[in-house]
């Protein structure tokens, strides 16, 4: 009991020393909590998108060791500050065992406070973020619910790191005599040696990581490759910082301008703390990179999904009729369809004459071989196999009706339009019908594109009759074709759209075997937004988590260094450094540390750029300009946030360091 009281009293009395450590442990707990509660949220399955899981798992893989690392860093700082006190206890006659016990009890108390405080802050913060998000997005598809795992996971992580801390403190107290404990605070680092070997390994790892990222291929191993590349780049970053910064500073020391007040002091104090700096800079860089990657990916997904939807729905409204009965009946006739349309017109008083009518023969997955002469005989059941291309059969007539300009074609000639892939043979044998390819069309507008997964190609035939013949050839010879649909596409106002859609669908009950369907861009957009809103929430929370993590490290770095530099700046001022020069020195020191991580993070992001664009390409998003501007915007945002963090935290540094004469 006595020792517990002593531990309690220690914490209360030296709260100023304990506070930054507690801040670190609570913050890490909160971050782990938020990440865990998203990862374990049962609603996550609804989103059914693998990359979210990948991002979350990678986030967790990085966050766990990172949070343990930062807690160790914070604790060692605390231990160093307190070793004088422990040394005093030792000299006053409290045995090593008892001192260790007190230190362990202190840790236990702090762990308890961390869990309680962290849970409260975590629940409030994540709920708050979620509410803000819902307010911004409108509806929600993803709902944040806490399972017991969201609480257990961060508690376990905190426990693990505190057990490590307990070992560290026991070791430190056992292996130091009371006298070294008393003096521990004034002990310095030896000036680091240049390490060209580490530099080489660092650059090698970075190179391999970048290479993996740039040459990544969409496939089963994408997750493993991604994670591998990330890991290599992380290790490479630390090594790079160790080697490069030491090399750079040594180089500066050799330079002719070394003996200038600003450089002189800055270079030396940076060199003096290089090991600490390296870890801090590495952590900041990686977190900032993660934040950029996460935000770019989610914003791209959000923006891209919307853009895809517009490409898939060039008109606001599609009215569709198709024969779902016996195949022998054939397609819905033009007369049948016109009758349905005029009934709709009568009922809604909306003019549908402006609309364009055509037959959509759907999309067919086939295997297109390489070579000059290609034969197609089978329809594939899945489009996710390699080498499979999704083919649309469209007549030149239809495309011209939709506002495209195309040269005339002889009956058995076709044009090829590739959405993705480079299919360009001389002839195709299409289920027994030989077709000659007259060329490629560069651009097709107003025709609903299909999903862009894998390769997709459009075959443009001479006229409607020819399309119908090719379709029939296919349906005679193979199974699994899509049913042809008769379609009216038209741009309507939101209100007219709603009425028309309702009226058209209501006739569905008495038209069997003909089924009536509608596509309504307004409704789809609304649904899509709620869906991708969930994404955005996860992305922004993750991004924020990484930024908070970086902010925490920066803050910790500033106060830790402030404490260390306090003495140095006091001496400098007494020797004759004016207050103005002190702040100049501080600024030049801060500037270097400010720019390095952000520059390296942007370089890392550039390395990941191709990988990211390939991953979002899986979702059918393929827009280079959008990706560039989104990346630029996100980087700008992060730089601004980072700058603000630095401004605020460097203020706390200056406050500690500066002494007014």
């Amino acid at each position: 009991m006595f020792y517990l009281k002593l531990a309690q009293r220690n914490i209360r009395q030296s709260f100023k020393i304990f506070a930054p450590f507690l801040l670190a442990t609570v913050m890490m707990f909160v971050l782990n909590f938020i990440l865990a509660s998203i990862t374990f949220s049962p609603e996550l399955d609804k989103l059914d998108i693998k990359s979210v899981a990948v991002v979350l798992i990678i986030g967790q893989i990085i966050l766990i060791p990172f949070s343990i690392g930062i807690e160790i860093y914070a604790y060692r700082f605390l231990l160093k500050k307190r070793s004088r006190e422990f040394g005093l206890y030792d000299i006053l006659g409290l045995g090593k065992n008892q001192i260790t016990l007190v230190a362990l009890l202190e840790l236990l108390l702090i762990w308890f406070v961390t869990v309680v405080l962290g849970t409260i802050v975590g629940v409030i913060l994540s709920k708050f973020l979620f509410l803000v998000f819902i307010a911004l997005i409108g509806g929600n598809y993803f709902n944040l619910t806490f399972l017991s795992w969201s609480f257990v996971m961060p508690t376990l992580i905190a426990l693990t790191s505190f057990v490590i801390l307990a070992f560290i403190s026991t070791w430190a107290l056992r292996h130091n005599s009371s006298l070294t404990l008393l003096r521990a605070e004034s002990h310095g680092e030896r000036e680091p040696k240049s390490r060209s070997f580490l530099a080489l390994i660092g650059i090698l790892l970075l190179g391999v990581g970048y290479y993996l990222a740039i040459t990544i291929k969409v496939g089963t191993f994408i997750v493993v490759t991604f994670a591998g590349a990330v890991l290599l780049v992380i290790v490479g970053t630390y090594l790079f910082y160790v080697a490069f910064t030491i090399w750079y500073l040594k180089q500066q020391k050799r330079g002719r301008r070394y003996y200038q007040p600003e450089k002189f002091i800055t270079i030396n104090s940076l060199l003096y703390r290089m090991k600490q700096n390296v870890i801090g800079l590495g952590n900041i860089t990686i977190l900032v990179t993660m934040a950029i990657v996460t935000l770019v990916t989610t914003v791209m997904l959000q923006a891209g999904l919307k853009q895809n939807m517009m490409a898939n729905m060039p008109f606001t409204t599609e009215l569709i009729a198709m024969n779902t009965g016996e195949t022998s009946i054939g397609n819905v006739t033009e007369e049948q369809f016109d009758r349905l349309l005029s009934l709709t017109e009568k009922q809604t008083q909306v003019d549908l004459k402006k609309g364009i009518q055509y037959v959509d023969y759907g999309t067919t997955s086939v295997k297109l071989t390489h070579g000059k002469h290609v034969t197609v005989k089978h329809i594939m059941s899945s489009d996710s196999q390699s080498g499979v291309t999704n083919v649309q059969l469209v007549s030149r007539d239809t495309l011209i009706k939709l506002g495209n300009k195309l040269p005339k074609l002889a009956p058995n000639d076709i044009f090829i339009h590739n959405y993705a892939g480079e299919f360009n043979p001389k002839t195709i044998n299409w289920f027994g019908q030989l077709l000659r390819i007259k060329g490629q069309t560069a651009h097709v507008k107003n025709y609903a594109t299909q999903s862009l997964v894998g390769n997709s190609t459009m075959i443009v035939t001479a006229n409607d009759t020819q399309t119908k013949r090719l379709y029939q050839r296919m349906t005679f010879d193979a199974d699994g074709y899509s049913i042809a649909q008769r379609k009216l596409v038209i741009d309507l106002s939101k209100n007219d759209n709603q009425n028309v859609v309702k009226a058209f669908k209501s006739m569905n009950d008495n038209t069997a075997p003909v089924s009536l369907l509608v596509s309504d861009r307004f409704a789809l957009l609304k649904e899509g937004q709620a869906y991708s809103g969930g994404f955005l929430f996860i992305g922004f929370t993750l991004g924020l988590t990484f930024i908070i993590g970086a902010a925490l490290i920066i803050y910790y770095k500033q106060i830790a260094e402030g404490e260390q530099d306090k003495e140095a700046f006091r001496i400098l001022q007494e020797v004759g450094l004016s207050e103005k020069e002190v702040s100049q020195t501080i600024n030049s020191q801060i500037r270097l540390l400010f720019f390095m991580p952000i520059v390296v993070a942007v370089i890392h992001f550039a390395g990941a750029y191709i990988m990211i664009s390939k991953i979002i390409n899986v979702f059918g998003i393929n827009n280079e300009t959008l990706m560039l501007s989104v990346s630029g915007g996100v980087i700008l945002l992060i730089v601004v946030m980072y700058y603000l963090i630095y401004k605020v935290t460097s203020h706390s540094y200056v406050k500690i360091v500066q002494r007014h004469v």
Partner: protein
Amino acid sequence: MLLEVNHLAKVFKTRFSKETTTALRDIDFSIETGEYIAIMGESGSGKTTLLNILATLERPTNGIVSLNGTNITRIKANDLAKFRREHLGFVFQDFNLLDTLNVRDNIYLPLVLNRKPVQIMQERLHTLAPLLHISELLNKQPFELSGGQKQRVAIARALMTQPDLILGDEPTAALDSKNSDRLLTLFEQINDEGQTILMVTHSSVVASHAKRVLFIKDGMIYHQLYRAERSTSEFNKEINLAMSSVLGGN
């Protein structure tokens, strides 16, 4: 006259109460170039406050301090640092070396702040290092040095600017007697070369190496003694005598 102190007074006010503490009442003395002066007093006598004012680290409530005819209590805050590094040298009780710099750079520091060319730094160090027996230490880090070595490095740093006046604040307090003796002899040597030195101390042994001793108590100078041709031990006895009679002990 190198340094003149007239009617110097310092009153401290605590920030939140109206209580005041008078550290210095009315101090008058002057120093000529080449002198070696010790200011003696018990703790709480005001000697550290006096030193801080002479060092321009604190401003007096009243009175004038002039160094070479410049009233240093009127120097603008922005110019103080420049004044310090151009005219004064410091030797502190706890050495005040920068851990981040090696010994050589610690010694160069004041001249770097003065933006002096490297050549001058090298020349001055070249003459100072053998005198202070630190030639072998130049590439070490401060934490590798003993207390006596650290203080010799600090003295080298103070001498680098060739200051008008060296101020010492209990420079031997953190040293053992052997190192302390060595250092005090060193100060005498430096003084013989013409360097003016002023130090505050509570130790008669330390004071006995000076040429003149000023006794301070309750913020006033009560007495002074000249060493003249006496040996340090004789002078030490006389200082002790003066201490008990003039300052009165208990």
